[in-house]
């Protein structure tokens, strides 16, 4: 397998590479990667004859690959596809891909990433709305849990096409970015050691900041390099003090400190 052109998509975007390979009347496979995603565009004597990107193929795949702004490309000489899915002139392909890039640049000013999670806008303005079937398809999947990329996969559209649909839906005021998406998406139940100090700490912090408390305890103890099973008074006091400083409400912060100093005092008296 011979390779003769390779590079970075940040510096050279897909339409430019297509143009170069077309002018050189090349035959082979252009392989593109963008993180975990990959795609292929096949050339036969400079003509684009087939493209594939994830579950997409044909022109849909080319349009998807055209908007990638990061990743790498490699051209493998003389590799041919099993079939052809594209029968379009080079000028037409280049014009459409350039157009898609322009649209995508506009979309990314509002939706910078396909990993963003959206939720339905509860305060929708009363008015007549007309949605196209593909917009409705995307909207029906908006649930404050799934990202744009996940929805794209579900509805069988390209990520860039789905981002464009979301752009319209945001502009229409039908959806908005879900708050704390990272926390929801990355949330794993935190299991803290079952010891009296940690149990009291958890309960006092839950009173102050709510159910996120165990996650915060785990994070802060990691940051400070504190072993939650440690029995030293110094470590316990340091952890309490740092946790109290992270409670935004001053009254709650003092209440937490108060509860925990009493606990420490009682613990010191017993031992």
């Amino acid at each position, binding site marked *: 397998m011979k390779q003769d052109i390779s590079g970075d998509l940040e510096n050279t975007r897909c339409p430019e590479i297509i143009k170069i390979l077309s002018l050189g009347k090349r035959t082979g496979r252009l392989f593109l990667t963008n993180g975990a995603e990959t795609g292929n565009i096949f050339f036969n004597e400079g003509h684009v004859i087939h493209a594939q990107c994830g579950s997409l193929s044909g022109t849909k795949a080319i349009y998807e690959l055209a908007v990638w702004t990061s990743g790498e490309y490699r051209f493998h000489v003389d590799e041919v596809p099993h079939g052809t899915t594209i029968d379009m002139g080079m000028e037409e392909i280049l014009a459409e891909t350039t157009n898609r890039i322009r649209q995508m640049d506009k979309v990314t000013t509002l939706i910078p990433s396909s990993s963003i999670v959206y939720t339905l806008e509860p305060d929708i303005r009363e008015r007549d709305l007309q949605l196209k079937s593909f917009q409705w398809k995307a909207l029906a999947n908006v649930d404050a849990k799934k990202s744009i990329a996940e929805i794209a996969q579900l509805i069988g559209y390209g990520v860039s096409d789905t981002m464009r649909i979301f752009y319209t839906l945001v502009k229409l005021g039908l959806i908005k970015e879900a708050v704390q998406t990272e926390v929801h998406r990355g949330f794993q139940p935190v299991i803290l050691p079952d010891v009296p100090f940690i149990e009291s700490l958890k309960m006092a912090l839950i009173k102050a900041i709510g159910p996120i408390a165990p996650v915060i305890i785990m994070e802060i103890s990691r940051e400070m390099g504190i072993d939650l099973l440690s029995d030293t008074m*110094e470590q316990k*006091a340091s952890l*309490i*003090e740092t946790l109290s400083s992270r409670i935004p409400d001053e009254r709650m912060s*003092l*209440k937490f*400190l*108060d509860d925990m100093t009493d606990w*420490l005092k009682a613990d010191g008296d017993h031992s």
Partner: protein
Amino acid sequence: MKKSIKDLLKIPGVHGYVISQDKRVQIKLPSKHPFAGAKEQFQELYAALALTQQRPGNIVEIFLEDLTLTVFPNTDRMLTVVSSSQVNQAFVRMTGKLLIADMNKES
């Protein structure tokens, strides 16, 4: 929520405390303590830490050779805890923070 100065004095390693307010300085330290008569120095400390610049909520720790001063400046008064350098510093800060908050509420 009520913390008394006794809670502070019960912490192992705490020698005593100083409360500075306006021109008054109340020193509660054993009579033979090197800082027992350091009224002027505490007045200067109060002027430097609380009067020239308001630092409510801040904690200033001054580490001397064998002693530690933990200072809690507030809007109208300042609490300084004098302790040995081996004291549980986090515990002193926690208790001091609560005490100064209580004092502030009362005034």
